[in-house]
Every structure is written in structure tokens, then in C-alpha cells.
């Protein structure tokens, strides 16, 4: 592996041939030890690649601690016409449950029920676990030792997120204390949210299964390419 073009071409070939995002570490490991480019060099190459593809049908993005090429959102409707299967659609109940897990992880089923005001259906938890978006991360150290759930790398990959921190901030809670005073309501102490409870470090591991069946899926109304949100977050560089 000598010159920069060869390194760049190798990286390009690797990114296109892997279905999952590749990290800098993965990319370095592909070269013979003596030839392995430094992380800085790889970053520069990734930047260059991203700009090479600027304005084309595909783009290089940073997803789940790695990099992948993906099609641009604006061409989605044409690409859907190539496919027989309609994209799956998820119920509100499932999405609300997933959102609570994503923002508040690690959470127990009880935490989720507390927010939603209804029992968490076993079907939904099962669907999320089987889809590989959610995994059990341990147990809360309280009586009954309820299972704690969190999101997976597959969740990030599916929802096009570089990391969980990239989720948009939750809507502001209006200042309850102030208005409570106006209403003459005695407010209790703010309840500790589960996200603040420090959980023992949970190591990431592969949990996902590649599922082509989707228990909660239904046909989707596709979003129009022009009404969709910003194409892809975290452009490299």
C-alpha cells in the first residue's frame, strides 16, 4: 500500500462492500501492519471521499461510530419503486416505547409505563427486542430486579444516527414551578428520572438479529422526499 490514492481506493472499496458502518479501527485493520495509515490520515481520506461524493446519488455519512455510504434521501421515492415490499410502518405505541427507551435508557418496563400511563404490551417489547433495536442491559438493583432496557447499535443504524446524543432534544418542559405558584399548587420535589441513575457500565455487544420479518410492520405511507427532514446528520468533517 503505497500512495494515497491506493489507500483511499481501498477504504472506498471496504466501505461499499461492508453492509455495516466501519470504524477507523476497522479500516486500519484492513492494511498490513506496516502499511496501516494513521488515524489522522484516514480521517483526511474520509473527508476527501465525502466531498468526492457531494452532489451525487449517494453520500458518505457517520453512523453508529462508523462510516457508511448510503443513498440520498431525495431519491427514496424512485428507489422504493424498484422494490416490491413497502417499507414497514410502526405503531404509535411502539414508537413511544422506543422513544422513551432511547432517551431515558436504561429504563425498566415500569419506567415506560409511568410515562405512557398504560401497561407496556409484551408484543411491543418483544418486537423491539427482536428487531434488534432494544436490548436488555442488566437489572435495576431494587426489589424484583426489573430488567433494564437500552437501545442498540442497530437502532442507530436504522434511524440514521451517529450516536444516541444526536437525537433531537426533548421539548422543553415549561417552567412548572413558576406557574404552579400562580395556581397556588404545592409542587412536590422533582422526581429523579431514571436516566440520572448511574447504571454500571454496560458493555456494548452485538445483540441484533437480522430480521426480514417484522412483527409490527405495516405498509407505510412514504414520506415525500421534499418533506423529509434534513438529509443526513453529521456529514463528515
Amino acid at each position, binding site marked *: 500500500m503505497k500512495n494515497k490514492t491506493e489507500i483511499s481506493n481501498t477504504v472506498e472499496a471496504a466501505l461499499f462492500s461492508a453492509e455495516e458502518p466501519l470504524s477507523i479501527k476497522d479500516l486500519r485493520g484492513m492494511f498490513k501492519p506496516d502499511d496501516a495509515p494513521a488515524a489522522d490520515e484516514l480521517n483526511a481520506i474520509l473527508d476527501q471521499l465525502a466531498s468526492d461524493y457531494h452532489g451525487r446519488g449517494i453520500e458518505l455519512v457517520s453512523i453508529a461510530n462508523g462510516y457508511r455510504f448510503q443513498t440520498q434521501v431525495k431519491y427514496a421515492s424512485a428507489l422504493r419503486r424498484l422494490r416490491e415490499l413497502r417499507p414497514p410502518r410502526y405503531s404509535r405505541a411502539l*414508537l413511544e416505547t422506543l422513544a422513551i427507551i432511547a432517551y431515558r435508557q436504561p429504563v425498566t418496563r415500569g419506567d415506560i409505563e409511568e410515562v405512557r*400511563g398504560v401497561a407496556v404490551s409484551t408484543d411491543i417489547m*418483544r418486537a423491539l427486542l427482536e428487531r434488534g433495536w432494544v436490548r436488555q442491559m442488566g437489572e435495576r438493583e431494587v426489589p424484583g430486579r426489573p430488567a433494564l432496557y437500552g437501545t442498540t447499535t442497530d437502532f442507530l443504524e436504522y434511524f440514521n444516527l451517529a450516536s444516541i446524543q444526536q437525537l433531537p432534544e426533548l421539548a422543553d418542559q*415549561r417552567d412548572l414551578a413558576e406557574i404552579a405558584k400562580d395556581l397556588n399548587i404545592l409542587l412536590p420535589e422533582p422526581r429523579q428520572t431514571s436516566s440520572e441513575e448511574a447504571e454500571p457500565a454496560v458493555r456494548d455487544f452485538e445483540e441484533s438479529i437480522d430480521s426480514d420479518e417484522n412483527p409490527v410492520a405495516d405498509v407505510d405511507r412514504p414520506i415525500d422526499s421534499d418533506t423529509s427532514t434534513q438529509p443526513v446528520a453529521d456529514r463528515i468533517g
Partner: protein
Amino acid sequence: MAEQPDQLPAEPKQSQRSPVLVAGEALQSWPEDLYIPPDALEVILKAFQGPLDLLLYLIRKQNIDILDIPVAEITRQYMEYVELMRRLHLDLAAEYLVMAAMLAEIKSRMLLPRPEIEDEDAEDPRAVLVRRLQEYERFRGAAEQLDSRPRLERDLYIAYARIDDPDPPKIESRVDLNDLVAAMKAAMLSAHRRQHLQLVPETFSVRDRMSRIMNRVRSGEYVDLKEFFDPDEGRMGLVVSFIAVLELVRDGVLIVIQNDPSAPIHVKSKER
């Protein structure tokens, strides 16, 4: 899992409504401002994700700030919806009734004079409700945002190029125990689903069994009742046979004869 509509219908506009039959009786009182095509009513009520979702709908519909809920009015509307669900025999989750009780408590508290010294330990149920509504609303919004993110399968696809390798290596894939457990669960789930699919079709039809019994007794001879009970058909088969015999007897086309209490039971066609 049943897919549920994600959106409630547009705000009601129509003033004149035709009577709607619910469980056989005309529905007299509609929740205020609720106009829904009658056949969609059940679907719409089911679309609420729970009592918090329903309350938020009621509050939002009237442009009321969550922090300033007119408890009495909202409680009245809430109860109308809950009553409607009950009358439609919807699976009314206990949570709705718990919420109804909570609303009633708040209402009653507000009627009482405020004590001079607040009990430090007692949470104002109104504050509790407001906080829960706010919290739920935030996550409901988060779920909508999540749903609208560009995502795989719908808005974008992974760009993939096939590897051109004349001498592809034999690579042993790596698996971890979680993959294995997940695979087992998936296999069990699909087996479970198939089992249900197989059971859903009516395997034993009473009508079909009645005609089979009539064919058997057509000759006019006495037939031992036991002939119609095939243990291989399981309990369901036995029950269906028994019901079929009873139906035929009631219709007056079959006679059941037993000579003494311990003798075998025979059946015979009534027409000579």
C-alpha cells in the same frame, strides 16, 4: 399486533348527526364536538394510547394550556369518552378508570376549602397530573420526531458494492450467545404464530357435523351415539358433535333413545 391509526380525524364541523346505533341502542349523548363517521368510531377510540393520550387530546382540542386545566370540564368530557368506550364494549383498560378516579379526586379537592397548612407529604394530585401530562407529551413528540427521521428501508438504503474476489476466503462467522438466544426466540415466536394461524380456521363446523350425522342416520336405523364422538378430534370435536346432535333434536329431525340408564344411547332419524 393491530396497527392503529396514528391520527385523529380533523376537528368536528358537522352539526346535524343521524342517530348511531351502538350495541343495538341509539346513542343519544355524544361527547361534545365529536363528529366521527359511525363505523370509524371504534377505531378512533381505540387509537388513543391511553388515558394520558385521551386527556391530551381533549386539552389540545380546546387549546387549553396543560398547566391550566379546567378540571371539572375536562373530567366531564373524559367521562363521556370512557362511557362511550364502555358502551362500545371496547377493551377498557383499567388505566382509564384509575385516571377517572384521579380526576374525580382532583375535582373534589378543589371544592374543599384549602387547609391553612399544607400537608408536606401530600402531593397535589393536580400537580402530579400536570407533570405526567407534560412528560407524556414530550415523549409523544419525541416518538413523532423519531418516526419522521430519515430511516433505512423507507428513506434511504445502504449503498453496497459486491466484492470481486476470484479466490474468496472461507471465513468462519462469529456468533455470540445473544444471537443464539434471539434466534431461538424468533423461531418460537414464528412457530407460535403459525399455530394460531392453523387454529383460526373453523376446523369443526356444527352445520357440517349436523349434515354428516343426518347422512349417517338416513337409512332409518338406530346409530350408536358414540359413533359421532371421535376421540382423535379432541375436545373441540366432541363438543361440536354433541352440539350438532342437540341442534338436530331441537329441530325435530333426530330422536335420541336410551332404554335404561346404563344402556348405550342411540339416535335415529325422525322421518320414518
